[in-house]
């Protein structure tokens, strides 16, 4: 059992291998409550595995993971996961998709759930799309619906696998602002995988640089301030700095 401490997520010597290939090797990590962490690193270093382990989808071969002092043995109630593929169901209208987690958790009467859903849809400017099916929505709208589906449960931990990778530049910025707004509103701890250094610098208070074999480096984001804008001094300098660390002396 874990000792009481200020870290919200704690990984103790976590090892995970798949088909005899060690993906994460004795990883120990402490993540603070309410902070946002951008997970970056080259393909195949175990970014998705790390997120899936914290979500409880995977079990470590050795070591333990604690969230809020509780050891993770399966999927935790207040953890929300935004998948890269979104996983919207073709048969669910927007209003049904966003309400589904509340119905699954039996979070109240149907009318109460409906009111909560409509209020969130209004906040996210999705109200006019409430009776649309996913195929009738644009990529950005689908992303917002998937985001609403995880936000409706007021999670204290948000895990996201490349949340904006498939979006155009402008929609990407809109979604990033939305993520930032709700992470701060819910005071949720957030871990997100990204291949976009600018996104990592914009959304992450800390940047978790994962390296082959499961070693990592935590970089404090000097740009991080609330509120923030890309035009602020230091944003692009920070991006260049992170890029250098990511390349780790390699030439492109």
């Amino acid at each position, binding site marked *: 059992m874990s000792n009481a401490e200020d870290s919200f997520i704690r990984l103790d010597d976590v090892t995970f291998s798949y088909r005899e290939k060690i993906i994460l090797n004795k990883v120990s990590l402490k993540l603070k409550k309410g902070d946002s962490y951008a997970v970056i690193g080259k393909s195949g270093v175990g970014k998705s595995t790390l997120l899936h382990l914290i*979500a409880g*989808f995977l079990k470590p071969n050795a070591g333990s993971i604690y969230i809020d002092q509780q050891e993770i043995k399966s*999927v935790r*109630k207040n*953890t*929300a*996961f935004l*998948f890269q*593929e*979104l*996983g919207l*169901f*073709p*048969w*669910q209208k927007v209003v049904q998709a966003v309400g*589904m*987690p509340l*119905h*699954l*958790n039996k979070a109240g009467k149907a009318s109460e759930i409906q009111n909560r859903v409509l209020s969130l849809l209004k906040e996210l400017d999705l109200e006019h799309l409430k009776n649309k*099916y996913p*195929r009738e929505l644009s990529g950005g709208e689908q992303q917002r619906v998937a985001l609403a589906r995880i936000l409706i*449960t007021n999670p204290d931990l948000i895990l996201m696998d490349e949340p904006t990778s498939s979006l155009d530049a402008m929609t990407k910025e809109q979604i990033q602002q939305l993520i930032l707004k709700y992470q701060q509103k819910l005071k949720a701890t957030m871990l997100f995988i990204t291949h976009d250094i600018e996104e990592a610098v914009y959304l992450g208070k800390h940047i978790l640089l994962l390296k082959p074999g499961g070693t990592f480096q935590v970089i404090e984001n000097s740009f991080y301030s609330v509120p923030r804008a890309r035009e602020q001094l230091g944003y692009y300098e920070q991006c260049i700095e992170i890029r250098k660390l990511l390349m780790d002396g390699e030439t492109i």
Partner: protein
Amino acid sequence: MKLLKRFSKSQLLGFLSFLILWEAVHLLLRTHTVPSPWETIVYSISRIDKLALHSLASLLRILTGIGISMVIGIPIGIYLGVSQKFGYLFSPFLYFIYPIPKIAFLPVFMLLFGLGDTSKVILIIWIIIFQIIISVRDGIAQIPKIQYKVMDSFQASAFQKYRFLIIPAILPHIFTGLRISIGISLASLFFAENYATVYGIGYYIISAWTKMNYVEMFSGIMTIGILGVILYQILDEIELKVAPWNK
């Protein structure tokens, strides 16, 4: 263009093209075995009450067969889709039995269930149940893994996975299976109703054939076509209500 699209979608075009082809064959062959469509239509209208009675008898058999096949076939298809073990055990049997002409089992059903309606309905079930099982099983196989993961991330129970994911996902496949099943069961009436009955459109056609009354025979054939059109239209309407996202 829009009107043309709607027209091409309508069943009327299908019926008209059938009539044109029929008329062409009639004019080319010039034999009493292929009467003219007009003569057949006039004959059918004059015997509408008789045709309605025979159609109703056939419809009852088909609907009973389809209903029972769904009640048995859907759960088997679902179990086959979700249980790997059951899949391994049952799939080889399914692949073996699926291509065998089911009509070949007719003597066995007659022996086991008598000559009445039971053996006829069981023959229809035997013909279409495998189609329904396979449609449902394939429907489950096509559910993307990510959708199960989404359900897991919300800690959905097994029942909730069926309610929110599996059942809606297989609905369009059930309708596809039903569409194929309706076609096959209408075709199978010809065999199922050729013994121990005096009601049914299959019987009507065979009886006309043996009397060498080809106008009557073709009016029966045309009626089967119309029955099919009506059943498909009803199915389309139900699908639009039950699975509107698929349209």
